[in-house]
């Protein structure tokens, strides 16, 4: 019986090793699906039961606390993995009668808050049960980033430098563009019933550019572009122009507050590697973007099911492995010296 279990365990390790190699050829997404499929779920449960059985059956393990810690650690990791899997979370939610919230994304503009997130798997909206507000969003660069004017239309996308002067040919269909004026602090006043643009007082700042587009049939249109109001559009504007900073990003930081029933319950400056933990969820800085409403931050919301078990398992394994192998090396050294 004992021998049988040991051989079974040895075979199980070999099979798992081969499964990992097979999974490595699938790519991350397919491998995730493969290792979460029903036959593999049966395998994982069987593997955990086998390990548990081994701990009960093998008395030798009970006399060696370090080896016991190692095997118990492995069981914790497997249990944490089972609990944290999609199926495990779904089952937990149905047992505890709580809504099941899958990993999802929040798209937030500075100064706004939202309790609606979008599921990572299919983009379906779901209610978090709490709302997340973005106070501020900052991108830090290595060195000074270069500002470009990013031009979009149905005909294509282009970057042009924001300096006054030269003509740029966008394409044969889209025509040409030129930066007519640059303003560090644009103000508009009315003169004889016509709006006139000029520099305002130096205390404020309103960087802006005046662009002139010339279509292939020589139709001239002028467009204002504002750094602080990147979605600015007027009737007759054919291009969406947004000033963008280009450079190697050092960090991006969302200053976030969590509200439940209108009351603030948690707050943190979320950075990559430093998520916010609240009510069984980790909220991560995922990415950012820019559209006609301005710059936004994308946050990822992930339930923390099973994570403590897994990390607890790592802890037990680390202690067990160091203790066990330190003893092993010492005794082997002594054996060698004697012989």
């Amino acid at each position, binding site marked *: 019986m004992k021998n049988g279990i040991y051989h079974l365990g040895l075979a199980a390790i070999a099979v798992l090793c081969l499964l990992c*190699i097979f999974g490595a050829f699938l790519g991350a997404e397919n491998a995730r699906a493969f290792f979460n499929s029903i036959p593999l779920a049966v395998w994982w449960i069987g593997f955990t039961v086998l390990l548990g059985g081994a701990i009960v059956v093998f008395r030798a393990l009970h006399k060696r606390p370090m080896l016991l810690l190692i095997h118990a650690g492995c069981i914790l990791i497997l249990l944490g993995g089972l609990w944290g899997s999609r199926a495990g979370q779904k089952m937990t939610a149905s047992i505890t009668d709580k809504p099941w919230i899958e990993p999802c994304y929040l798209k937030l503009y500075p100064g706004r808050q939202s309790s609606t997130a979008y599921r990572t798997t299919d983009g379906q909206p779901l209610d978090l049960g709490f709302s997340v507000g973005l106070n501020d969003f900052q991108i830090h660069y290595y060195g000074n980033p270069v500002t470009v004017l990013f031009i979009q239309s149905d005909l294509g996308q282009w970057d042009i430098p924001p300096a006054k002067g030269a003509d740029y040919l966008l394409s044969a269909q889209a025509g040409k563009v030129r930066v007519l004026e640059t303003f560090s602090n644009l103000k508009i006043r009315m003169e004889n019933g016509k709006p006139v643009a000029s520099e305002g007082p130096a205390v404020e700042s309103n960087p802006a550019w005046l662009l002139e587009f010339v279509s292939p049939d020589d139709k001239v249109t002028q467009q204002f572009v504002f750094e602080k109001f990147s979605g600015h559009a007027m009737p007759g504007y054919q291009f969406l122009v947004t000033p963008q900073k280009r450079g190697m990003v050092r960090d991006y930081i969302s200053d976030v507050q969590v509200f439940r029933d209108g009351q603030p319950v948690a707050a943190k400056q979320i950075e*990559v590697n430093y998520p916010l933990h609240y009510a069984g969820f980790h909220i991560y800085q995922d990415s950012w973007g820019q559209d006609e409403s301005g710059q936004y931050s994308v946050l990822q919301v992930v339930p923390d099911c099973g994570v403590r078990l897994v990390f607890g398992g790592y802890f037990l394994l680390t202690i067990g492995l160091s203790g066990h192998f330190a003893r092993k090396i010492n005794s082997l050294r002594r054996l060698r010296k004697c012989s």
Partner: protein
Amino acid sequence: MQLKYSNEGLLIYAMMAVVAVGLVLRVIRKKQAAVFVAVIACLVGLTAWIMRWIAVEHIPMQNMFEVFLTLGVFLLPVGLAARRFTGIDPPSDGLGDFILTLIILFPAGFVFSDAPQKLPPALQSPLFGPHVAVYMLSYVLMAKAALQAGLGLYHHCTGCKQLNAHSPCEDYELSAYLLVCLGFPLLSLGLFLGSVWGKLAWGDWWGWDPKELWSLACWLMYLFYFHWRYLFRQKMPRTNCVCVILGLVFIIITLLWVNLSNVFRGMHNYAS
């Protein structure tokens, strides 16, 4: 294949030359002189490593060039420490360290690009240094173990006919085992630190990424080896040795193939 004329590149070539001298001294059994030369080689390598750190403003373990530079610079001192720690001092071991250092420094000097890179946000973590350093350390130990295992296999074919109580094959097998005993906790710690870091940076402690799966396959290979060896002890020394060598093969695949090939696309493809 390209020559590097940067300060780090020239220092790598200098270190390779010094290591080659050490190797020759070791072969002609001038042991003391070889140790002295090894120390000089390490100092040259360490200078290159520190200069690289200052130039890129982060611990030089980000891309393939930096990883191989680190491995090459620290292999000799780690080898020495491992000899002290495990009590293994077969005549082959010091020789092996010189050869391994040359093999590892070669791609750093001639293959991988040394263009400096800034750290993207995900790599700016306090876990970056420990995760990579612990893995490097365990890889060096596993490489040394595989060398011992290889010698064990070789001597099994040639020298085990005389039925001594202590055949050289068994000796090598035991040396390999001791080194794996030393490397395995570090390999595990590297895996755990990586997983914790993955949770903090990417939101998941396990992402089924090809590199993650290969590193788990390595871990399981050694796990299999320990259970196999517990069952059969030294009755099948050749199989034990093959397990240790397979472990290193898996490590090389994890380290190189996954980063360089297009077969395994994933989040760890930082070297391309």
